[in-house]
């Protein structure tokens, strides 16, 4: 017994209040007046000093509110108590306030200051409840106050208060939708919260305020997945539903390869779909076939984030909360690969033991699922058997599921079950059963006859409803193949003597009329009988008698002419105007008179047209376009606020958006970088003096520091390890130094056309004399260029990597998995991340990313001009001997194909090696270097799903079986670009992942050098005049005013060979495009003061124009 009733007992009759009063009509006079009295009484109590009296008054007021009575006139008296010390009184005042504030806005404002004070209270419970009530008061004036309070609470220390803030967001939003932008900011902030307490509530706010801002989820996706199991159950439901939608926009359809099989291959499907069904599906099928064909080229690899979601939700199938189980079930249904969806069946079947309302909802969803994925529920067939004690709505739904699950193997058991159901006392259920039998019969041809026989037997049932329903179903079944079943039609004709249900009689008559040619003898007889009883029939039967008469008249007028006339005459004087109209209409049509128009000619066509067989299909078909488990799905209509489940994307959006940066890391790395620079500075300034041009030194230091700091930042991923990491990087330096030495030796032995790197080395040698320590800095950038040309240097590098201490490697990996650096994202992201990105690119650009323009800007071009000159001649003489390696001096620019972070540890760079591609001379050789920075081995590296412009071809590199962690491998692939700069797009596949990559060649790489004599050159040039010649005037760059520099720059920009030339004012180059072999001739004529003229002669004007542009840029910068 509560205190309130105790109090009432005590008070006795003093007040005319009391529990027994509810149910009375408050409007009736007597009670109305007593209401007034009572309120006075309550006011007195509220004004008193005693808390117990106040409490009592509040309890009675709340009881009034609960019963839906108006207590608004007490508002001033109640609001006074908002600051009451007694916590229960206070709570009840809050209840009252929230209920009536909307009606009495001015008075409600009086209480606001109390809440504002409460917001600052040291007790988190009070802070939270103050915010809760404040945000529940629906008074527009206080919107700014609410906004402020929410913002403050969102950064409160107590997670409980933050949770309350999340709850307050949708309240404010519904009060004033214009606050949306500000609220989104708060949501964004709260989404980043790491406590489970907040997660559910903020996602709920997200769903209500800005469900379209899916981009806010990216960064929090993994966190939400991982927190999910610890979130309270209601939050789980909301989060799972939201993540389902999210996953549909971000990942690829895991069933894309199977969708075709599913449609065509499941064998029994063909039995199932009636013909119409299939036609309908045809288009869809085609689409799917296309998709599948597309998919066939690439095996589907699930995004690890997609997998994460599936893995982390699966345990929740074991939740005690039916809503959670359902949420997971729908997530699996919509997102999981077909093979894995099965797990949900068991859990859903378990829910069938729950309350009948739960059963109702679950069965609706099972019905939808069982159409798409029959196999899933087949093992649980018996769990859907119907008990006589089930409510009818449950019975009907179970019946629906059973019908969907029926196939050749289980149909006999199902039909046996149906037989018991037909005897049920629940007639609605029996009718549904009969329809279900009809559907089974249409779907499974084997049992069609059995079903028909069973239904025919039902025709003798005592219950009219049953008979009528069976007749209707039989009619539909017969319509599908009437010729086989003339005996049933005969049987039904006999039934007309007994069956009295109008609907059934009408159906029989329609059948006989429709298929009168199958029962030529009986039909006229039936008409005779019907004519006799015409006047006593129900209206729908009469209409069908007229129809029957008309049809018979058209087919068998000899026998039935008189009968028809008789029936029509009877109908003419019928009481029902419908029947009179019909008779008149039909007479005009079938009985030819002079007045009858053209229509009567077509009477036969009108009446005996082939009618399409009705389709018996599940009402749950195609309901799965609604998200399962949703209200909209249940009602099969879009409910307000329903968020459409998006279709799978064709191509997965960039997965790296979900990568989360560790905030300390960015700070740390930038600090590290600064430190590093400081260390570097002194010796660079040192070397600057010696090594000539300042610029080169700068660019070097940049690249070096870039590479260094990137490794540095990797190590510094966890701040605590920074000490170690420094050591490690030092040891690395030493090692690199050694490696440098080795390389040098090798190179000297080789002395091949690697002039550039040689030159670089020599310049380094100079440096080395002054500052030994500076060398390792360069090693990286140098080795980079080396690798591109020589496999030897690569092996040496990989060796060096091997030699790295294991701990070091491990650390790297660890960091790799943790840190993540976004590629330029497809969507604009929030400011914060942008900033971070900028920092990152500063760190990494020099290391990996190519300059934005395709033009090659070699790092070491200007190092030692004299050396280049010296070697120039050498290269020329060499080139005569071996044209294959004619490639003149140039450092090969390498481009990034896959960044190690996007590639999850796998990084790929490529360069145009300028070697002839031996398998196919028309292809450009692309040398790729794979580096596995991840902690695990990468297997089966290969190319797939090449998307090319027409005419282009790709010769893939042989699959790399295994790329152990930390290893590097190279491969050469050939691409025939068809002399265009269109990109070749393809997927780079590992055993787990696929990456979309593309290679776009600079125009200069689309040609191979040819050797021409001066005379040949002039001759060819003479033939490529006019439109094929492009001339541009230019002013040469200051540093590029001698021959060698020009040669250097031109050959770097384009893969051409130099043509000997008598004049020292002219430099000539020649090459042929790789695919078509069109000549490309380049002439650079120098004049005074750096002025020059560039002439390009090329058959292909497009190539020519582009080449001019590129060379111009190379020469002027």
């Amino acid at each position, binding site marked *: *017994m*509560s205190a*309130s009733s*105790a109090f009432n007992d005590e008070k006795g009759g003093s007040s005319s209040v009391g529990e027994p009063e*509810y*149910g009375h009509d408050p409007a009736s006079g007597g009670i109305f007046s007593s209401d007034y009295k009572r309120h006075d009484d309550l006011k007195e109590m509220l004004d008193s000093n005693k808390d*117990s009296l106040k*409490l009592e008054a509040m309890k009675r007021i*709340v009881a009034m509110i*609960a019963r839906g009575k108006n207590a608004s006139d007490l508002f001033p008296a109640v609001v006074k108590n908002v600051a009451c010390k007694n916590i*229960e009184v206070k709570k009840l005042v809050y209840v009252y306030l929230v*209920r009536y504030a909307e009606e009495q806005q001015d008075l409600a404002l009086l209480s606001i200051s109390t809440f504002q004070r409460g917001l600052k209270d040291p007790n988190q419970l009070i802070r*939270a409840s103050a915010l*809760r009530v404040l945000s529940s008061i*629906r008074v527009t004036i206080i919107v700014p106050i609410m906004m402020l309070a929410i913002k403050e609470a969102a950064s409160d220390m*107590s997670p*409980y208060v933050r949770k*309350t803030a999340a*709850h307050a967001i949708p*309240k404010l939003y*519904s009060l004033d939708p214009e606050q949306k932008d500000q609220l989104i900011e708060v949501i964004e902030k709260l989404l980043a919260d790491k406590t489970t*307490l907040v997660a559910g509530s903020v996602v*709920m706010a997200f769903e209500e305020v800005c469900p379209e801002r899916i981009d806010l989820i990216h960064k929090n996706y993994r966190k939400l997945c991982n927190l999910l199991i*610890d979130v*309270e*159950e209601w939050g789980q*439901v909301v989060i799972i539903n939201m993540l389902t939608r999210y996953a549909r926009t971000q990942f690829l359809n895991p069933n894309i390869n199977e969708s075709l099989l599913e449609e065509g291959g499941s064998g029994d499907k063909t039995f199932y779909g009636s013909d119409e069904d299939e036609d309908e599906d045809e288009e869809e099928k085609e689409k799917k076939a296309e998709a599948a064909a597309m998919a066939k080229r690439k095996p589907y690899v699930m995004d690890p984030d997609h997998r994460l979601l599936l893995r982390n939700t699966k*345990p929740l199938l*074991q*939740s*005690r*909360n*039916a809503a959670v189980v*359902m949420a997971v079930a729908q997530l699996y249904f919509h997102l999981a690969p077909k093979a894995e969806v099965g797990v949900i069946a068991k859990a859903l*079947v*378990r829910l069938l033991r729950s*309350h009948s*309302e*739960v059963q*109702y*909802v*679950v069965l609706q969803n099972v019905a939808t699922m069982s159409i798409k994925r029959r196999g899933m529920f087949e*093992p649980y067939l018996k*769990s859907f*058997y119907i*008990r006589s*004690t089930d409510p*009818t709505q449950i019975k009907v739904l179970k019946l629906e599921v059973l019908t969907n699950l029926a196939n050749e193997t289980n149909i006999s058991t199902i039909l046996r079950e149906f037989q018991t159901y037909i*005897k*049920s*006392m629940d007639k609605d259920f029996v009718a549904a059963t009969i329809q279900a039998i009809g559907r089974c019969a249409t779907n499974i041809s084997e049992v069609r006859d059995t079903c028909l026989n069973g239904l025919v037997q039902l025709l003798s*049932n005592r*219950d009219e409803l049953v008979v009528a329903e069976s007749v209707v179903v039989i009619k539909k079944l017969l319509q599908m193949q009437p010729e086989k079943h003339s005996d049933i039609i005969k049987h039904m004709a006999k039934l007309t003597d007994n069956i009295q249900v109008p609907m059934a009689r009408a159906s029989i008559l329609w059948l006989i009329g429709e298929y009168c040619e199958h029962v030529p003898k009986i039909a006229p007889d039936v008409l005779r009988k019907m004519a006799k009883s015409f006047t006593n029939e129900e209206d729908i039967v009469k209409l069908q008698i007229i129809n029957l008469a008309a049809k018979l008249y058209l087919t068998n007028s000899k026998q039935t002419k008189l009968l028809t006339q008789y029936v029509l005459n009877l109908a003419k004087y019928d009481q029902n105007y419908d029947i009179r109209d019909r008779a008149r209409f039909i007479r005009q049509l079938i009985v030819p008179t002079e007045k009858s128009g053209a229509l009567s000619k077509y009477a036969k066509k009108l009446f005996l047209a082939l009618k399409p067989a009705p389709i018996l299909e599940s009402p749950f078909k195609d309901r799965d376009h609604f998200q399962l*488990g*949703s*209200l*909209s799905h*249940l009602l099969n209509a879009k*409910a*307000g606020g329903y968020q459409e489940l998006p279709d799978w994307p064709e191509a997965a959006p960039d997965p790296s958006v979900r990568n989360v940066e560790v905030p300390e890391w960015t700070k740390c790395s930038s600090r590290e970088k600064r430190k590093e620079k400081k260390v570097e500075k002194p010796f660079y300034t040192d070397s600057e003096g010696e090594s000539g041009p300042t610029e080169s030194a700068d660019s070097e230091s940049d690249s070096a520091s870039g590479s260094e700091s990137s490794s540095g930042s990797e190590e510094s991923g966890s701040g605590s390890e920074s000490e170690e990491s420094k050591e490690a990087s030092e040891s690395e330096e030493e090692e690199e130094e050694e490696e440098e030495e080795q390389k040098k030796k090798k190179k000297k032995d080789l002395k091949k056309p690697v002039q550039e790197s040689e030159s670089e080395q020599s310049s380094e040698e100079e440096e080395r004399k002054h500052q030994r320590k500076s060398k390792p800095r360069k090693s990286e950038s140098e080795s980079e260029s080396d690798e591109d040309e020589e496999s030897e240097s690569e092996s040496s590098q990989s060796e060096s990597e091997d030699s790295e201490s294991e701990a070091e490697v491990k650390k790297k990996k660890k960091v790799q998995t943790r840190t993540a650096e976004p590629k330029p994202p497809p969507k604009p992201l929030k400011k914060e991340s942008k900033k971070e990105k900028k920092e990152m690119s500063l760190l990494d650009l020099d290391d990996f990313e190519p300059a934005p323009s395709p033009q090659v800007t070699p790092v070491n071009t200007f190092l030692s001009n004299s050396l280049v000159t010296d070697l120039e001649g050498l290269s020329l003489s060499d080139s005569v001997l071996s044209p294959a390696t004619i490639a003149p001096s140039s450092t090969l620019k390498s481009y990034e194909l896959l960044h190690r972070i996007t590639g999850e540890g796998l990084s790929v760079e490529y360069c145009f090696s300028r070697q002839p591609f031996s398998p196919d001379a028309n292809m450009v050789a692309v040398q790729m270097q794979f580096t596995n920075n991840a902690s695990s081995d990468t297997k089966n590296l290969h190319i797939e799903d090449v998307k090319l412009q027409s005419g282009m071809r790709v010769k893939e590199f042989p699959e790399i079986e295994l790329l152990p962690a930390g290893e590097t491998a190279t491969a050469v692939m050939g691409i025939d670009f068809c002399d265009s700069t269109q990109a070749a797009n393809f997927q780079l596949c590992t055993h787990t992942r696929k990456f979309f990559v593309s290679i776009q060649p600079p125009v200069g790489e689309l040609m191979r050098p040819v050797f021409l004599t001066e005379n040949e050159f002039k001759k060819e040039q003479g033939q490529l005049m006019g439109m094929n010649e492009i001339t541009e005037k230019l002013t040469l760059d200051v540093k590029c005013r001698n021959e060698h520099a020009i040669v250097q720059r031109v050959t770097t920009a384009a893969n051409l060979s130099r043509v000997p030339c008598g004049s020292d004012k002219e430099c000539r180059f020649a090459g042929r495009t790789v695919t078509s072999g069109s000549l490309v001739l380049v002439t650079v004529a120098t004049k005074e003061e750096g002025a020059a003229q560039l002439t390009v002669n090329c058959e292909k004007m497009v190539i020519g124009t582009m080449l001019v542009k590129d060379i111009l840029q190379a020469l002027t910068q």
Partner: protein
Amino acid sequence: MIHSLFLINHLGDIFLEKHWKSVISRSVCDYFFEAREKAVDPENVPPVLQTPHHYLISIYRGKLFFLSVIQTEVPPLFVIEFLHRVADTFQDYFGGCSESVISDNVVIVYELLEEMLDNGFPLATESNVLKEMIRPPNILRSVVNTLTGGSNVGETLPQGQLSNIPWRRAGVKYTNNEAYFDVTEEIDAIVDKSGTTVSAEIQGVIEACVKLSGMPDLTMSFMNPRLLDDVSFHPCVRFRRWESERILSFIPPDGNFTLMTYHISSQNLVAIPVYVKQSISFFEAGSCGRLDITIGPKQTMGKTVEDLKVTVHMPKAVLNANLTASQGNYTYDFTTKLLVWDIGKLNPQKLPNLRGSLSMQTGVPNPEENPSLNIDLKIQQLAISGLKVSRLDMYGETYKPFKGVKYVTKAGKFQVRT
């Protein structure tokens, strides 16, 4: 989410309303009453109704309708599950969930509803948390409160609300530390006319009553855990541990709770403890019928079957039953057409039998379907699936708790078709 809640009694009176957002007029319930009218039985009212501006989601519990008003898309199960949780909480607080109980405690009910939902979104549904915020009523406290002016409302935020184990309150202390577990299994079966089992499933539940001080960490292991392949757990159970070792490891809530439920599906072989021989027939002539039911033990694993009861829902045409029972007694309710035969203990030596004649309404065609029999029974100290708890260990606390496990098998939806 949930906009408003109306409690409606079986007569169709709204006796409580609560709004979490702006007030919605009671007239919205008219749509529900209409549907209620249409459905003959209260359980046939569709749980989800669509009205022009709102959606109504209702549950039917203890002859009351809990009707919630929804305005926008929300998973229907979410609401249904929540409403059941509300009803469970009432049951927990007041020991019942009827109109009179709720009306008597209307203030506490209101306070509870206020705490359970905020702006229509569930806030605190764990009974342990709620009980700390709003103390359940009892006579002693209400007397004390009236004298001292104390209140039912807790002043601090329950610890559970903030911790990762919201189901357990902090600072629990008992003088007798005890943990009892009831393993209850219900057999859902359909047996056809000839006595063959059409389908049989077992629905098991482990209810716990744990009164342990401090923060005990319990593990429960089973002799034959592979029986349990379809389970659902209280949130306290560590799922990963179950996955890897098939051991239930959990920090229990304080007091009574359902630790887990499991389901042994019809694919497994389920023992049926009794068989039923019956013949019910109605004769066209003389408008009478004959009934003969005998029950015998089948697979009882050597235990006695108790509380045996047969319920038959007779066709409308049956006016009266004139029967003799060899054991127990029977009642026939003329208005509800319910024949109940209460047998009691099943004696394998002398099988109970009920036979006699049924008098039928004249002039009405005979019912075609024979009514099906619903069987109730109970077997103590047996879990029919064979499930056995092998160990219960406690970690984290030093005292020695008193432990106990009890097994019961009951008939769930056990139906014999005739």
